[in-house]
């Protein structure tokens, strides 16, 4: 709610704002490090190179999805269908990945194509109709799940070639391929967001769609690009998951969208659009992964894990809303 006071009250609000932004930006990193330190003290198993590598590996799939959904949320949208896209693209890729059928590039391309097409469909419906993205992607979430079941007859697609299984399950120079791909994706997404015209337009569209239009930005094209990009990243996640567990599961990725959105929001992406960073999202995803891994190491039951996770998400959104209030 705006009122006449905040607008004309620059001095106070500025100092208050910088303070809150400070919490949002560095508070997350601080919280992350604090949790890491706490876990290191609680269990000697936590702070080992091998365990850290495992955390990053486990986080990578969610992080890829979170990167995609960060793009979408920055433009003021949302994509709930990413979990289903993981299943569809995984099943599609697996169908082409049986040994001695196609070269490994084929399942990769087919999976990516499926994700890009799915994302583009989301973008098309969102831009061509007045239906809010929440509803559109809620619908395609269900459609996607159905497609995955249809394509696989409700059964996992297994017996995949070794070269395919290497993509998400192998190691290069002792480093799991998932970590390498995560780093590549992180850098690429950061560049898109920070250094390209498209990235700038994403912030503009999410920050003030009308003003973006008045500046000559093709808002529809930006949204289309964003949902397609999100679909591509979800496909990558789906292919990697399939490769990691060596089977295309039609029920894979259920609920992944919420973890991914949580990572983005914990990472400071504003649900009202216009702000967010890939670094924040990565830290958000790592935070979720570290907590999950740490509590497993401590043999804490998953019930408590859920409670902790919920508290962190709410905390992040409260920070976000504080931040927004001062922008009003």
């Amino acid at each position, binding site marked *: 709610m705006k009122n006449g006071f905040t607008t*004309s009250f620059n001095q106070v609000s500025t100092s208050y704002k910088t303070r809150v932004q400070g919490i949002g930006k560095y508070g997350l990193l601080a919280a992350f490090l604090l949790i890491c330190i706490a876990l290191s003290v609680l269990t000697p198993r936590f702070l080992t190179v091998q365990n850290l590598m495992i955390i990053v590996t486990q986080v990578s799939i969610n992080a890829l999805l979170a990167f995609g959904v960060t793009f979408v949320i920055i433009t003021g949208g949302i994509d709930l269908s990413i979990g289903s896209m993981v299943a569809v693209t995984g099943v599609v890729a697996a169908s082409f990945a049986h040994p001695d059928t196609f070269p490994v590039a084929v399942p990769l391309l087919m999976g990516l194509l499926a994700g890009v097409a799915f994302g583009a469909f989301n973008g098309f419906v969102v831009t061509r109709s007045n239906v809010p993205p929440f509803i559109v992607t809620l619908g395609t979430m269900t459609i996607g799940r159905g497609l995955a079941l249809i394509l696989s007859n409700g059964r996992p697609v297994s017996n995949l070639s070794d070269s395919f299984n290497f993509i998400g399950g192998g190691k290069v120079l002792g480093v799991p391929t998932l970590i390498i791909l995560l780093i590549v994706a992180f850098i690429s997404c950061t560049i898109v967001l920070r250094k390209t*015209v498209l990235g700038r337009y994403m912030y503009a569209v999410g920050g003030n769609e009308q003003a973006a239009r008045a*500046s000559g930005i093709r808002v529809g094209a930006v949204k289309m690009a964003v949902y397609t990009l999100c679909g591509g990243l979800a496909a990558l996640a789906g292919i990697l998951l399939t490769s990691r567990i060596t089977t295309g599961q039609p029920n894979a990725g259920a609920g992944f969208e919420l973890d991914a959105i949580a990572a983005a929001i914990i990472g400071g992406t504003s649900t009202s659009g*216009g702000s967010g960073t890939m670094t924040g999202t990565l830290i958000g995803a790592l935070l979720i992964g570290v907590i999950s891994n740490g509590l497993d190491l401590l043999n804490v039951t998953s019930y408590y894990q859920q409670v902790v996770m919920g508290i962190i998400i709410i905390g992040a959104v409260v920070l976000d809303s504080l931040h927004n209030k001062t922008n009003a």
Partner: protein
Amino acid sequence: MTSDTILQVRGLTKTFSGVKALDDVQLTIRKGEVHALMGENGAGKSTLMKILIGLLTPDSGEILFEGNDLTTGNVGDVLKRGISMIHQEMLMIPELTVAQNIFLGRERSGGLLRWLDDRRLTEKAGALLEQMGVAIRPDMPVKYLSVAQMQMVEIARAISNNASVIIMDEPTSALADAEVATLFRIIGELTRQGVAIIYISHKMDEIFTIADTVTVLRDGKYIATRPAAELDIDTLIALMVGRKLDSLFPVPDGVPAGEVMLSVDGLGRRGVFADISFEVRAGEVLGIAGLMGAGRTEIARAIFGLDRISQGEIRIRGKRVVIHSPQDAIGHGIGYVSEDRKGWGFIPGMSVRENLTLASLRKWSSGPFIRDKQERDVATAMMGELNVKATGPDQLVTYLSGGNQQKVVIGNRLLAQPAILILDEPTRGIDIGAKAEIYRLIHQWQQRGVAIIMISSELPEILGMSDRIMVLAQGKQTTMLSRHEASQETIMRYAMHRDRDTGPTGE
């Protein structure tokens, strides 16, 4: 303290994180006067008002209300003692009725669980509104009211509160002329009953129409208090900005206008405007005047491709064009600065630099990648040219004053190098210093051969800047005046023109 002094403020100081928002400020309000509080944005008016109504506590100084100390009161105390504020942006509950809003928080039902006596409230509110001479149904939910009507309800709320001091912050910013007249009549009645009005406005003509006394603040300091009758505009501006502005408007230099950049022929949008024909030449300013709702903004929106037109044609450099979207318009070299700065102007979460370069970003990039250094250089140069007051190119636009935000929006359009620039209320809500700068900028770009269309409700601005003036009434063009033909009176006459034979739709 004389006997008719109702509110006295002395030595008031308030500091926010080291910055003095108010520094030893004084103010004396007498019963039954309209006391204008003047100053540029950031002069400390709002801080002072917030302290008066108890939203902020001063660091030092005293506030005497009818001789009692009010310095540490909270909002409730102040209200009870009779100081009310009419807010710039209405603070009402849209779903509740007029009567419920007027008596909100003071229903006096005798307990939370008792029935609210709605009928009694409605009767009381109805009587009050009638007494004020405004025709608003007290049982109407507030969401159906116009802005002007809501303002009347706010005033009714203040009166019902037995307010002896009413603060009005830019009360006419959203009112049409007839509504302003009603407001002034009510203010007159209130002052006759001894109510004092503290009146904040940027509009000089209003101040000289209704104010009895004027107090000027500048940079948080008290500057002067004078009877309005002893002031003229130049003196008042000099007090506010601390220097004498040579002239608010740049002197026309008589450079002949160039080729016709934009011409519009028989333009119409069903039910909104019709038969609009004009042309603008390179290096010319075409002013568009008219009352609120006359169709000025709608014409600009249609030319910029935000609304569809239903008849007529648009030519750019003599060639007929079809414009369906802002992208089309921008492609034809049209830039548009909306009257709604927050809605259509800038991206609040972005820096000054990012906002400036947004419309021209393709120019400062190679392929998909932005050339960071060039972008920064371009933005910094434009900030210099526009004299944008910011801590640097990376400061967020939200934190700038309205005038500087407006400069950024204009800079954004200018960097796209438009051949035709449409400015809709370019100085609305901007303080006088920034206004002068924006006029200077318009003049500069005019000299560089840009064709400029300027829509404005402020007649001095229209008269001071335009080479030609088109006047609209009820969606139709009533005249086209040259600079030397035009005067406030002629413009108003044409703006009030009522054509009884054909309706405003003009199919």
